[in-house]
């Protein structure tokens, strides 16, 4: 299902109507918004939205199939062969065609569809010892850059047959025993084009281990140094009766394909198999935030442009990433200032004073200093417990550095605390939904309102949570905004949204008074409409600011001039 807006699921032909690109002017859409059509969504793409399409696994497989079919017909190869050729070239059709036209035999060996023809045997080494020939040729097997099993050499080939000779019991045609399990009750044997025969049960264990443990879909023959690869049909045949591994194998094939297509991205939510198609360019990430939702669930919201698995609008990817990194790096320091500890002036690690003595030794770097003046202890001579060096230069410098870092930390905490507060409230949304549902039931019983009519409560909660996400990210962005008029206007919009959200939030969480349910309904509905408008304003104005290059940053931002 295609959807640029989580509320517009049923508007499939939406994109065909709108191909004006990003600069759609939709000033009116916010003012026309009414509570009742929240769930229908706006009919026009908003300035902060991008075009995209959600694809099911079957739909992606259809795309893969069309690539496979075209290769099959161009090269006139078997149906099983084309997928391996494409996979070997990471689905780069042009490169495959070029290389295959150039040297089909080499490409076939590299892509694991044919064993190297008559690999010339290495002359046996000195002889005499039981394993000499296998030894000398096996040097290349170990340690050093063995690129991969996909590049076999004549030398390793011959070594393999040696090893096989050793482990394999005499092969009688009538009683073949699998050289891996030696289980003589096995009756079904399979081999790839290389003719290395193994029992079906060993193949199954091997493929299962590759697929499940290694998440590997490129399954080379089990024989040592054999680079022939199992085509899909072979895997399917081996995995009859193990539907789950087969499905996982299929998923891995699709993931591999998707990961090599810049216009596709796999849904990052656990055990989701949907893909989103979006043709946004790297360069446009400086002005656009490509938030998409997969067709599996409206909660599967993620950014097509970066690895953040949630809606980080209105902040562009580069700034959002910087902010998350900052929060990650500073979480320890932030705790420090809260708990009134000090930091070692040498290694910056946190020190807690837990006795009367001013002589502190940093646990981490062993730096000794004075708790009172923060200066080095070595300069305190014998004035134990009694600091008289508060104004000495070394002590002053240490304190200045600390107060500077304190000031910058306090600035950071200003934004961080607000960010964290909205994040915390969002996390409690599950409980809020549960509480709200109870209230809705209560309303139904104590008033004449129907279940449909009490939905205004749920819609209000939806809106509050959505706006808290916006607010969170506006604080992340504000931290990096250069002060000035633009930032002030930005913060005005932010403040208006925040007030509106807190008002609505308070209203929906306050205890129910059966007397005034009708009034409450009107109030909540009005405030929800207002909150929605304020959120639109923040999202639109910020997006427009990016397009106009209106935002100035107090740090260099990757991808921006």
């Amino acid at each position, binding site marked *: 299902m295609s959807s640029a807006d989580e509320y517009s699921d049923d508007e499939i032909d939406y994109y065909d109507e709108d191909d004006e690109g990003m600069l759609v002017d939709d000033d009116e859409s916010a003012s026309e918004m009414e509570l009742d059509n929240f769930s229908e969504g706006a009919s026009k793409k908003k300035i902060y939205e991008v075009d995209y399409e959600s694809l099911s696994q079957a739909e992606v497989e259809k795309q893969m199939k069309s690539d496979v079919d075209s290769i099959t017909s161009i090269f006139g190869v078997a149906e099983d062969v084309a997928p391996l050729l494409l996979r070997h070239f990471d689905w780069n059709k042009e490169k495959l065609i070029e290389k295959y036209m150039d040297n089909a035999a080499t490409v076939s060996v590299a892509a694991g569809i044919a064993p190297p023809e008559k690999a010339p045997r290495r002359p046996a080494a000195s002889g005499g010892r039981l394993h000499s020939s296998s030894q000398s040729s096996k040097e290349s097997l170990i*340690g050093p850059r063995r690129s991969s099993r996909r590049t076999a050499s004549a030398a390793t080939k011959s070594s393999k047959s040696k*090893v096989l000779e050793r482990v394999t019991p005499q092969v009688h045609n009538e009683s073949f025993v699998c050289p*891996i*399990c030696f289980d003589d009750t096995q009756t079904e044997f399979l081999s790839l084009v290389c003719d290395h025969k193994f029992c079906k049960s*060993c193949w199954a*264990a091997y493929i299962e281990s590759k697929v499940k443990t290694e998440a590997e879909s490129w399954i080379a023959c*089990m024989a040592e*140094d054999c680079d022939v690869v199992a085509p899909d049909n072979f895997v399917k045949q081996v995995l009859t009766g193990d539907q789950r591994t087969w499905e996982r194998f299929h998923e891995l094939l699709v993931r591999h394909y998707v990961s090599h297509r810049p216009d596709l991205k796999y849904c990052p939510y656990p055990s989701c198999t949907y893909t989103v198609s979006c043709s946004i360019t790297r360069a446009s990430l400086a002005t656009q935030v490509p938030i998409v939702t997969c067709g599996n669930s409206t909660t599967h919201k993620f950014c097509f442009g970066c690895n953040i698995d949630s809606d980080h609008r209105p902040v562009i990817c580069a700034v959002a990433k910087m902010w998350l990194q900052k929060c990650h790096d500073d979480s320890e320091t932030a705790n420090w200032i809260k708990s009134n500890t000090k930091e070692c002036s040498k290694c910056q690690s946190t020190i807690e004073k837990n006795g009367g003595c001013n002589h502190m030794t940093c646990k981490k770097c062993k730096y000794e200093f004075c708790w009172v003046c923060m200066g080095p202890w070595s300069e305190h001579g014998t004035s134990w417990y009694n600091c008289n060096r508060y104004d000495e230069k070394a002590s002053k410098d240490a304190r200045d550095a600390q107060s500077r870092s304190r000031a910058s930390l306090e600035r950071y905490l200003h934004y961080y605390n607000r960010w964290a507060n909205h994040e915390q409230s969002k996390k409690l949304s599950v409980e809020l939904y549960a509480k709200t549902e109870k209230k809705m039931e209560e309303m139904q019983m104590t008033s004449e309102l129907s279940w449909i009519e009490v939905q205004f409560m749920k819609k209000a909660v939806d809106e509050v949570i959505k706006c808290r996400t916006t607010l969170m990210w506006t604080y992340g962005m504000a931290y990096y905004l250069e002060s000035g008029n633009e930032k002030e206007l930005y913060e005005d919009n932010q403040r208006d949204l925040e007030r509106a959200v807190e008002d609505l939030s308070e209203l929906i969480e306050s205890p129910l008074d059966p007397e005034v349910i009708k009034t409450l309904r009107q109030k909540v509905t009005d405030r929800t409409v207002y909150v929605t408008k304020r959120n639109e304003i923040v999202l639109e104005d910020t997006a427009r600011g990016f397009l106009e290059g209106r935002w100035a940053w107090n740090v260099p931002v990757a991808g921006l001039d």
Partner: protein
Amino acid sequence: MAVSTRRLQKELAEIKNQGTPVGIQLLSAENFQEWHLSLEVLGDTVFAGEVFCLRFRFDNQYPISSPAVQFVVDDKWKAPTHPHVYTNGHICASILGNEWSPVLSVISVCVTLQSMLASCKKKELPPGNDRYVRHAPDNPKKTRFEYDDDTV
């Protein structure tokens, strides 16, 4: 019977019937979880006169998954000084990792390692040995070695 047990029984029987290659001896194989073998490099090499002990650990996925193989380092044994052997006995060899094939066996691993030592011209520790040893997991299979050196 687990495939790993049947397979190791078979390998053990083969060792008992056919013996081991020169320079390789089975020290202990009391169960199907852990075996010890001694390894000696014959002829004129930098390891002439030294004997090493290899410890094999098998899980029940063997031989589909590779055994955990390392040189024993204790009061009695030490690891060879070799650019692919860390001083804690861990070995950086692709056949124990991404080049493992289920047709390989305990003996073929020993033979391979014997030849790795035999071709060594100069006793040298792997680069970053100290750092690796300090942080190494107990089981070498948990390490993701990079097979990035072409000169054995």
